[in-house]
């Protein structure tokens, strides 16, 4: 599985679809999903997997090249897998889509300050620093990460890794298999320090 292309080039946004699949957390489920894409000839731009808010369910976020197959077919074929519980296409939703990149750059006493300035502009964090290198961690959409990579290239990128896109619909609507949070529980969560919807800063926008 490839993550987002690292050379900064990517298809026009309208051909990309962000599909979220809620899947049973069972051995082989990722193989089932990836094998389906291979044999049906659907191109994956990015695939990420992690736990969801429900124990026993994982959440797969796929970025699919809509030119390679009608996204409706992708969704239906995914849903046919027994271990896939729910499939949603977030593309037409107002969504937050993010990925993380770690970038190891050649850095010395001469140019380190310049790199730190660039990092500040992109709100990237310095997560490691050594005599001849630094590692930047950046969170954002693909364009932002591509932009930072481009700025770092002249200094010499020694190593790069990206997580691929994860996404979530804004507002109360969810992509989970459960009903929306009951009001009582929502209040409980709020009392424990979670910020109420609408107050969240969209930090990287």
């Amino acid at each position, binding site marked *: 599985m490839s993550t987002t292309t690292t050379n900064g080039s990517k298809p026009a946004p309208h051909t990309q679809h962000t599909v979220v699949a809620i899947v049973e957390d069972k051995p082989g489920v990722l*193989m089932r999903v990836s*094998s*389906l894409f291979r044999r049906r000839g659907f191109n994956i731009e990015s695939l990420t997997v992690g736990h969801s808010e429900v124990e026993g369910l994982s959440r797969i976020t796929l970025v699919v090249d809509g030119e390679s197959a*009608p996204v409706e*077919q992708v969704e*239906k074929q995914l849903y*046919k897998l*027994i271990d896939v519980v729910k499939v949603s296409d977030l593309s037409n939703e107002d969504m937050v889509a993010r990925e993380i990149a770690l970038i190891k750059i050649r850095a010395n006493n001469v140019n380190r300050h310049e790199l730190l300035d660039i990092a500040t502009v992109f709100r990237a964090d310095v997560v490691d620093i050594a005599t001849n290198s630094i590692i930047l961690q950046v969170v954002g959409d693909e364009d932002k990460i591509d932009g930072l990579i481009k700025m770092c290239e002249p200094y010499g990128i020694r190593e790069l890794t990206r997580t691929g896109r994860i996404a979530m619909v804004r507002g109360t609507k969810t992509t989970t*298999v459960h009903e929306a949070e009951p009001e009582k529980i929502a209040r409980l969560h709020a009392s424990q320090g979670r910020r109420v919807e609408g107050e969240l800063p969209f930090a990287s926008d």
Partner: protein
Amino acid sequence: MARMTGAQMVLESLQREGVDTMFGYPGGVVLPLYDTLPQFPGMRHILCRHEQGAAHMADGYARASGRMGLCLGTSGPGATNLVTGICTSWMDSTPVFALTGNVGRSLLGKDGFQEADITGITQPITKHNYLVMNAREIPLTIREATHIATTGRPGPVLVDIPKDVFQETAEFDWPETVSLRGYKPNVEGHAGMIRRAAELIDQAKRPIIISGHGVIWADAHRELVELAEKANIPVITTFLGIGSFPESHDLSYGWLGMHGMFYANMAADAADVVIGIGMRFDDRAMGRFKDFNPTAKIVHIDIDPAEIGKNFPTAVPIVGSAKNVLPRLTEQVKQQSRPDWIRWIDNQREEHPSLHIRESRRMLPQYVVRTLYEETQGNANIVTGVGQHQMWAGQHYFYNRPRQLITSGGLGTMGFELPAAIGAQVALPDMETWAICGDGSFQMTLQEMSVLVDEQLPVKMAIFNNGYLGMIRQWQELFYDKNYSSSGISQPDFCKLADAYGIRAIRVETKAEVPLAIKEARAYKGPILLDFQIDQEENVWPMVPAGASLAETIEAPAHELAR
């Protein structure tokens, strides 16, 4: 609850799911299961001679009876030999349960003797599969697997069990219900869509129903007749849909596709509304997609939502079982007579009678099939291999009930006929069962003749012997300048071979002997092989050349009709 070994749990669970017959072959890692088998006298085990045979037998059993078929193989080669059969079931959506053993848990992934990652191998060709790592999971797994195989769009499942899990002891905990949150087939059909379909059918001037295998598996053939009769809609079937609508019915116009009837192809191409029921608009049926009847509006009724819109844009999609959808559709459509449209198709059939068999002194294969039809009064179950003989069996026998023709359509698996006929005969012991065999196709699985002898199964084998891989030769003749590269095939003396197995055989060399041989085979109580020395270079017509559209269907050329 009781403590049981894994092997006992497997057999107990299968029995609770109604399985009483298994087709299998023993091997090292399934020995614990075979050791336990005598404790379950209600479970009949039929010993195949190659696991591919076991998988086809389970498939034939399922197709003939409508019940799930079960095949069993050991790890490694036993499991991989099942693969062709599993894929055959997958392509034709038949409920087959494949049970395999694997090496002990501590050896999994270590490339131990006879280890194969069979769940990985069969992942794309099963509806679902399982590797069971604890004996206590066996009852639930078998329940789930059976549920998946037999509901919604049926399909094969595979359950792989390591040797030491068969031997492990645990509490047998039978789950009363199965609930899979990722698997909830929608059988009902959307009321609004059914209404729209009814409106479209009412307005249609030239509607046609294309009925498929799904109608048979939904057990909806009566409901289909009611719909067709009320709205006077001509019905054609897909190749696998043969039998889903009685071919003797006035509204039946045969089947469409690459070797379908000329008038069926023309009707599909001329229709203004195409109602596909339990079928998947496959390329062999529809010809070149982009040129299939571009003005037709498509109503697609299928239980698998992924089939809708896969190959053609659909005007009215209805996801549901034909069993539920058709009565509601019948209720809502208007009674109509459509005389002009029906006359148009009748004229096509009169002008292009695809099923006419010409007078000839040669033993034409079409004549053999037709004679079989007449001798059996159309009542036999027909099981075919793959190739020319398969097409002739589909064309020149007439089928009036579902499950009467058993054939590998989607995967086109040569060698299917004999083992599938064995499965069908086991499922329906009193049914006259004919395996129509190609001389090439038969040689792929002929070792299963031993099973006929072991189990005393009265399967009638009719070999269509033309000394060629006939369909290959036909393509080479028509599209490769008669370059008959590797299509001439030598064969053993099939009669001597049958004799060696202890099976009676008759060589049929002239046309005059055909009805006599068939009569004799029917009168004989046991298995029998008829070796029909058919005309060598007969071709299957009509034909839609590969990559052509249905409108380009070609009929038998004059020089061939003069032969």
